[in-house]
């Protein structure tokens, strides 16, 4: 019975229910999801269905001032963690963006072309910058969670 149940659950996409499934089932490629994580360069990434959405933090958008232009990579660009992937321009300043993880760019936020101010107004929602695949989920563990990031900001602000 348990073997059949695990097959049913897998077919239904309910991968997390191991207590009903057979312990000897082959390793399952489950949908990877994480809460928002932060880099020390003030980018954030949150992962859903194995796709990471990347933006800059509120601390960063305040430090930049009004964003007037977003220079973003092309879809398909392969990035390694720490690679520079674009720049935001504000108050005559071009500020570089660094990839939080390794992966491939799957989408860029087209709304920013006409409305770059979204990065300031809604840095965690509508002002997202790019989406990318997560080549190596272990890299996420190297990033800060929200609490750690808040502490980090306090430490650099004094």
């Amino acid at each position, binding site marked *: 019975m348990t073997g059949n149940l695990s097959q049913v659950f897998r077919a239904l996409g309910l991968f997390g229910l191991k207590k009903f499934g057979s312990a000897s089932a082959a390793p399952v490629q489950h949908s990877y999801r994480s809460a928002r994580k932060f880099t020390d*360069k003030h980018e954030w990434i949150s992962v859903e269905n194995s796709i990471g959405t990347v933006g800059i933090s509120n601390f960063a958008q*305040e*430090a*930049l*001032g*009004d964003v*007037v*232009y977003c*220079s973003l990579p092309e879809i398909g660009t392969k990035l390694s963690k720490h690679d*520079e992937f674009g*720049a935001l*321009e*504000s*108050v*005559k*300043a*071009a*500020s*570089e963006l*660094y990839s939080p993880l390794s992966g491939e760019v799957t989408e860029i936020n087209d709304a920013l072309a006409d409305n770059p101010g979204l990065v300031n107004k809604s840095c965690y929602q509508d002002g997202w910058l790019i989406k990318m695949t997560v080549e190596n989920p272990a890299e996420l563990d190297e990033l800060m969670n929200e609490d750690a990031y808040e502490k980090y900001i306090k430490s*650099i*602000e*004094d």
Partner: protein
Amino acid sequence: MPQGPVRVLRLGLRPYPDALRVQERCVAAARAARPRGAPGESLVLSEPAQPVYTWGLRGAPGAAAAARLRARGAGLVAARRGGHVTFHGPGQLVAFPVLDLRRRRLPLRRYVQALEELGLRLCRRLGLGAARALPPPFTGVWMGDSKICAIGVHCGNHITSHGLALNCCTDLSWFEHIVPCGLEGKGVTSLSQELGRHVTVEHVLEPFLDSFREVFDCTLVFSEDPGD
């Protein structure tokens, strides 16, 4: 805030691409100094020996415009900074502060304001009390409707590069062939034009450095070595 001295490299009259190369080495040195906690900041000063038009993330001239500008005898250089197209050439003081904003706990927009303050203090020292800074998109230092000092910076890993360009005795007719900084209807001016006498880059170096020390609260040490 004690940061260690800022190394000043006075290049004198040099082609603009040379100054960019020196700047790159300074940026590398600043990055390398950081994990050691060592002072690694620089200020590169030069006077472009030949006329060039440069642009930032935006403002690249199309092919036809580029050909026209070249035909006038100017070079064209892409510079990864904020700000649109502008001109650099003889008679202009070009200053590239390579500073560590993380060590200075200075947000980028406050750094740009500090550059404006630097330009304002210098103008006032030279007798131009009417100089003012305006809010974005009019970043820079203005005399009335004419810009006397352009600002455009780059920031990577909290290390700054590029900076400002102050017209001392620049031939302002070079600006007629572009829309400087993408701002229609605005003019450009120079210290010489405003003061009614010939003011060279050499004349302004000392007051510039005094103003820099004040605004960035630092000591300066003169060097020929980018430190890398």
